[in-house]
């Protein structure tokens, strides 16, 4: 996946190999938002397909797309820019869940906050996009994203590591920091994060 390559050596790379059942522990970070360095200046449709490698079936499953806090109806007419935040959700319950679906029958209910593009097109450029993955998309798209590597704020990593239980650490098969094994004690000591702004995190199942 190109995302991991693009993140390159900019930040420390923390790579987890964990038991299958523990991958979902990392989904909490997907809810908060992770960042990817990628090509921007493209439509949401192109971003999903080319940058996130989402297939047609996955895109069909993504029923609510929120760009910079606003629900998107037309994936071709909304553009990803450097610094954009893109949140993705499967179909949600309730009238408001239906209201937030892209192009849904009740979209007028939230017309005050619907995304409208201000320009027809943007120049392609390298940039950073914050991505939030919710609910049913976490185990597919989100898992792939974690596998390829994402940027996570150091503070979020610190909190995440602090909150892990004994069972979690028992299920970690390998933890590498910049390709070298890191001892559990060293990892749980927040000192290694000192002065770090972002961390590249990747997660794969053993």
């Amino acid at each position: 996946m190109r995302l991991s390559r693009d993140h390159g050596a900019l930040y420390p790379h923390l790579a987890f190999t964990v038991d299958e059942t523990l991958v979902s522990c990392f989904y909490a970070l997907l809810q908060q938002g992770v960042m990817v360095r990628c090509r921007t200046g493209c439509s949401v449709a192109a971003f999903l397909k080319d940058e996130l490698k989402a297939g047609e079936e996955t895109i069909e499953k993504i029923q609510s797309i929120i760009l910079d806090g606003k629900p998107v109806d037309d994936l071709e007419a909304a553009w990803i820019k450097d610094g954009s935040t893109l949140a993705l959700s499967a179909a949600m319950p309730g009238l408001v869940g239906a209201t937030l679906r892209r192009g849904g029958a009740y979209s007028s209910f939230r017309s005050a906050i619907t995304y409208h593009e201000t320009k027809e097109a943007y120049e392609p450029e390298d940039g950073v996009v914050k991505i939030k993955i919710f609910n049913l998309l976490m185990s597919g798209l989100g898992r792939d994203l974690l596998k390829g590597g994402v940027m996570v704020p150091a503070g979020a990593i610190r909190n995440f590591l602090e909150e892990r239980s004994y069972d979690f650490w028992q299920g970690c098969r390998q933890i590498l920091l910049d390709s070298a094994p890191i001892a559990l004690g060293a990892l749980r000591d927040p000192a290694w994060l000192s002065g770090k702004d972002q961390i590249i995190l990747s997660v794969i199942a053993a």
Partner: protein
Amino acid sequence: MDKILRIDVGAESGPKATKVPVGEYAGLGGRALTSAIISKEVPPLCHPLGGENKLVIAPGLLSGSAGSMSGRISVGCKSPLTGGIKESNSGGQPSQVLARLGYNAIVLEGKPKSNDLYKVFINKDGVKITVDNSLKMLPNYDLVAKMKSEYGDKISCISIGPAGEMKMGAASIAFTDMELRPTRHAGRGGVGAVMGSKNIKVIVLDDTGMQIRAPKDPQKFQDANKRFVNGLKSHPVTGQGLPAYGTNVLTNILNEVGGYPTYNFKQGRFDGASKISGETQAETETKRGGLATHGCHRGCVIQCSGVYHDKDGHYLTKQPEYETVWAHGGNCGISDLDKIAMLDFLDDNYGIDTIEMGATIAVAMEAGLAKFGDADAAIQLVHEVGKGSHLGRILGNGAAMTGRAFGVERVPVVKGQAMPAYDPRAVQGIGVTYATSPMGADHTAGYAVAQNVLKVGGDVNALKPEGQVEISRNLQIATAAIDSTGMCLFIAFAVLDQPDTFQALLDMLSAFYGISMTGDGVTDLGKKVLKMERDFNKAAGFTPQHDRLPSYFKTEKFAPHNVTFGVTDEDLDKVFNW
């Protein structure tokens, strides 16, 4: 189902039960039946806690049958919270059991002659009403445990907690679930206070020896039910999203679009949202040995509920709903899921509406009674309600009362009832429903079913802002009809998107009653129910000015989108023009 059980609590020698034929109310169920009885038999200007008011408890048209999702039960009365007509519905087991016992409804009426508290036991042999003052001020969980020890574990219960006995405006009526826990509630509008005013603490139901209700055309019914279930299971919301995460799956997305009312409706985003989201909740439940997928009554195929355990793996409460997590969570600035679950348990135990209570605590926080984010203080405030302290009496009567008592302007209520978890400035269409529903601010009043299926009032251009009024009207009509069937409103998602599933529902009703139910028939039923309810409210003194949001929604900009509620009063007044 061919009779109504009327209990005159004002009879000379104590409450007297009479079984009467369903008569003129034949063919009605759920909300249609409760609203028909209230609008015909209750004087609109009566005091909600007086002898003239009645409490009607009615299962749905398909309750007690083999029909899936048919376990909702409606409670109707004149509301002590809104002063208007009220229908509040719930899941749980009693709907199925009451229907199998043959009752279209239970009606509590009259004014008690004494302060004695009563329990009602109903089984195949009849009705037994007994004075039992040992039940006074028992919380719901203790009460149900006591009933279980007396009547065995084949029962289901309809009960009130201390809040109902104290006749508080936020008091709920509890309905036991499959595990005989009082976790499902008719929460809205203070229906528990009306039950309390009749001095009935609990109705115990036992359908042992009764048969499942049989359809007129069993083969067609079975076929339609199968298609209906398949439709629910194949839909991404009812077949995947709700079973996996429950309704709280909405937290993240509402927060992301800036429509999540936070700190008493001050802003649309909460920093702690991901800590209390449905995704986090499901993960927590599973990790602790609870359940993230569970039904609230037998025959449910959506399974949107769950079981929440504490850190030690012990049962704490059922899976809190989205509105509960929001009300006690983001709206109060609280991001501790365990504390929110405790608040949910306390609400259920004392018998209080979780939405009203959360909104009330947020108003109390704004008044300075506690700090936003202080979960322990919030828990203490709920205990005050349970104890019935002077402060608790104010809080237990809801957000509007609390706002008046403590001089708070930002009180998010319509017709005296607190708004649920969707800010009407971000999602303005739901604001139309909040404003105009006869029930007061209620997210479920315009929840269901598809104008693109029913085409109530013709085609609507949904992409135009002015379509909001028409859509709200259509949704309210359709919802009133669905509420009358006793079907869970969550079927709406599948029915919304899949006309075949909607047809399967019509076919179920048709096969069960030997009639020919059509989409037009559903529309007519919804309109009839709404008209009854609006007429009652009008006679009770409601005017178009009551169909408004509080004025600050028009003036206070709501971050992050800095929007205000923009639907005009003139448009709101058109909602019921059909």
